[in-house]
């Protein structure tokens, strides 16, 4: 399925100081192989998405409006970037702002969970005629190293369907990890040596291939892929064993499941996994918006900030694009139940890490937050920016069943102020 004529420079030659690096560029099937012969000097790149499910309020996070009729009860606080203030509900994150950037002028015009989610994770509105892969699958296919058997797309705490990979296939479908201890049943059964495990899996594969060869394929491929990924995880089960992490480090991430997921993702990045999505729920605060956000962001703030600073300390932040977003924001107007409703008209997204201009603030909303004031941004702009940030070409076309498609919305362009 993959075109092996793509030139690959392997890790060894990098270590030997040659101008080439680890990882193959595996494009979309049938893509015009524009970069096939380019040799890029770069390390493994990663993308981590923090998905604040349900729609976190921009007014309680990145774009506070204290003292206005829409601002609510919270104040804004200074951050490590002079002149930039965010909500007081994110004190630890405020100290990491010099690693982050904020877009305050997002207008996606989409207020439905499902459609908003697709728009923010594929960069394209829901198209009845064509299913675009989610960014996890896309980046898995573009950034994943052939040598690394670990899954290319991992999602923590729910929300990963095989259909997100669309035509990219089951290799790039998300692997879901729930719970505090990572996947269960990682430990091989008693008496099962690695050699015996391999032998039985190989027999399993032979039987399965003989069966699938004579029949319609897709579902059988999905099933096979699950065993491949399972085997890779069993092989590297030490990654999920947080007891191997010094107590002081674990303490900084805290005891919440979200904190543990952040730490697991850091370890996954250290082992070359290109894309992880960490889902934190639930932010759909149609009522009691302020209580909700105190609680939710109270859990979110410190592990998120720890994650950023940890990556920085380990030299990973320069190679990891961080995106913190949701399906949409929340209404400036506070409803009778003290809640905020869905709002895609003027909201915010935070980015950081690889290729991103640290401390940048792009765009603004008017005093009460109901409109974008300047520099209106769409999901398409964001996607152009993501691709450029990790060193990929966002305008590249690819072909599927003979039809050309664009990886990102051709009507949009990268947000230059956000890029280094």
């Amino acid at each position, binding site marked *: 399925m993959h075109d092996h004529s793509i030139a690959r420079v392997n890790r060894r030659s990098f270590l030997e100081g040659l101008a080439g690096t680890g990882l193959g560029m595996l494009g979309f099937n049938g893509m015009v192989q524009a970069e096939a012969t380019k040799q890029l000097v770069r390390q493994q790149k990663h993308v981590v998405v923090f998905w604040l499910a349900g729609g976190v309020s921009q007014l309680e996070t990145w774009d506070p409006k204290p003292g206005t009729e829409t601002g609510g009860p919270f104040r804004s606080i200074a951050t490590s970037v002079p002149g930039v203030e965010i909500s007081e509900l994110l004190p630890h994150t405020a100290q990491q702002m010099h690693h982050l950037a904020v877009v305050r002028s997002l207008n996606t015009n989409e207020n439905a969970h499902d459609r908003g989610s697709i728009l923010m994770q594929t960069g394209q509105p829901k198209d*009845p005629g064509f299913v675009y892969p989610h960014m996890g699958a896309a980046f898995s296919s573009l950034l994943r190293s052939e040598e690394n058997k670990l*899954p290319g797309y991992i999602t923590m705490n729910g929300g990963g*369907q*095989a*259909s997100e990979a669309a035509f990219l296939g*089951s290799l790039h479908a998300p*692997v*879901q990890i*729930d719970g505090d201890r990572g*996947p*269960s*049943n*990682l*430990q*091989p*059964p*008693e*008496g*099962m040596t690695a050699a*015996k495990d391999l*032998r*039985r*899996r190989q*027999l*399993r594969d*032979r*039987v*399965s291939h*003989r*069966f*699938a060869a*004579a*029949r*319609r394929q897709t*579902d*059988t491929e*999905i*099933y*096979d*892929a*699950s*065993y491949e*990924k*399972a*085997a890779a*995880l*069993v092989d590297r089960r030490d990654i999920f064993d947080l007891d191997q992490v010094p107590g002081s480090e674990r303490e900084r991430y805290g005891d919440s499941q979200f904190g543990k997921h952040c730490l697991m993702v850091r370890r996954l990045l250290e082992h070359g996994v290109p894309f992880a999505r960490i889902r934190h729920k639930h932010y759909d605060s149609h009522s009691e918006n302020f209580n909700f956000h105190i609680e939710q962001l109270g859990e979110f703030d410190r592990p998120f900030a720890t994650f950023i600073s940890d990556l920085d300390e380990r030299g990973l932040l320069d190679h990891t694009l961080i995106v913190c977003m949701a399906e949409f924001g929340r209404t400036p107007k506070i409803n009778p139940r003290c809640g905020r409703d869905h709002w895609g008209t003027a909201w915010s997204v935070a980015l950081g890490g690889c290729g991103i201009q640290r401390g940048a603030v792009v765009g603004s909303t008017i005093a009460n937050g109901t409109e974008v004031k300047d520099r209106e941004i769409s999901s398409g702009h964001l996607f152009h920016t993501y691709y450029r940030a990790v060193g990929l070409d966002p305008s590249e076309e690819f072909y599927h069943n003979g039809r050309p498609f664009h990886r990102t919305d051709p009507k949009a362009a990268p947000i230059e102020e956000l890029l280094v």
Partner: protein
Amino acid sequence: MEPILKADLRWLHAKAARNPAVGERASGDACVRCFSRSRWFDRFLALRALLLPIFWTTGALLQASFLVADEPLHERIDRLVSARTPNYENLAAPLASDEEFLRRVTLDLGGTLPTSDQTRTFLADDHPDKRSVCVDRLLASSDYARQMMHHLDVTLMLRLPQLSIPVPDWEKFLRNAVVENRGWDQVTRDILSCDGSDPDNRGPARFYLARKGDVDQITRDIGRIFLGTDLECAQCHDHPEIDEYRQQDYHGLAAFLVRSFVFTDEKKNAIFAEKAEGEVSFESVFAVRDNMSDGPQSIEPRLFDEFTMTEPDLPEEEAYQVKPADKVRPIPTFSRRAQLPQAIANGSNHRFARTAANRFWALMFGRGLIHPVDGDHSGNPPSHPELLNLLAEQFAAHQFDIKWFLRQLALSKTYQRSSVSLAAGEQAGETSDEMFARAILKPLSPTQLARSLFQATDTIAAERTVLGDGFTEEALEKKLIALERLFVRRFGGLPGEGPQDFEATVAQALFLSNNAEIQRLTLPKEGNLAHRLLKLPSDDPNGLVDELSLSVLTRRPTAEEQTDFSEYLVGVPADERPSAIGELIWALIASNEFRFNH
């Protein structure tokens, strides 16, 4: 044989085929066999000679009438499927082999696999009617009752957690309905008419009460399950993409339920009670957004444009039989909700009949004639419109007799096609699923997977041995159900969701690969398959591979497999042999071939 006797036999055979309870006794063969050469037989011969012409004419007329008016449904299915696709006969896969057929039908109708002995017997049987006999045997079995109960449970309850009504009560209601072969319309009416107020009949109320009496959730699910329409989007506005799903359709259905609410009596039992007042009120959020709304509307109870209801105009003092009061469950004089079961579940409700036929078709074939099964609208026409109309009409005409319907589907050639693609010559995309030119792969449901695993590894026999003198069917069932639950948790998907595309998660692969309980099933234990295989002489690898393949894959091994499987054990030291046999069994049960019904 003389023509008369042939006609007799065929008529009697056909009659026996329609009435399995009568069975062999009605078969002409048996009659002839039973007769011994006696005075009575001589008189019979004489009488027969006299009545010859009469039998001849009657038989011929009956045969002729069958072919015209009473061509069996399964033959009409085949004709219509073939006629719908150009070049169908060349594109279609051949009929499934006996091995393929036996495995498929045992899974579909019995929810499990046959034993290796049952497989051997079926393969060796050369009776021309053996497939239909097999279908009848399965339909009469307790395996069918369990499998159909599980299937209906998931269809109706979407794995919602227990609430208000104990799940065993609900399952008992369903199981009784299946065992009695109650018509699907009657089952539907039983469910929709139950409020839980009768202490001896609370089971069916799970449908309403596990949904917390939530009018919107119930409206949506009634639309999806019984009427083939997912009206969710139409709650807030006319459906943006489907013209026929209007906001008034959603609220017309909701209007039957809007007066209902959950009442808790002094024994803490929840009852789905009803008031005498309350109306639906709706406004399109699009119209509101665009400042084009005329304000909130209401609508009386109706089912699309097909069924409307007249409510009696009662004076206020007569509105209640039992007036609402503190701790008193109200009973209205006229109940809107009581009109719903008959309005929905009857043969002349075309949507109901079509949805019923489509859903049971999808169960057997892996894909509805309307796909998805809750997407019935003119923008999503059936792949075989004439066939679907016929099925709906026939299912209704037979009082929604589920066993009768499934039997007809199982006897069709279309059902019995192989899943194997045409060899090398087939171009990609030449056939697609909706042509029904070959069997569609169906992933095993969680309970099918569990039961198949128990059967393939002969865990059932092992558990019998373990229970020893304490063995009862009940004790055995209890153990198996506990293991079954493991599978439902792992493979059952999210509660409240309808059927989704096939998902194979890493968590499931890890479960099947490393879970200690699963591994134990594959290792030798008195009575199970691994134990049997271990006891076979190691110089007869063919015997071992044969038994392995028949038990787990329901077929004989190919020559390639004989080599592949027996080589797995070559050179394995004696103390490692049990483990190696376990690995061999595991490789098969973890394979694609096992995971799917094909």
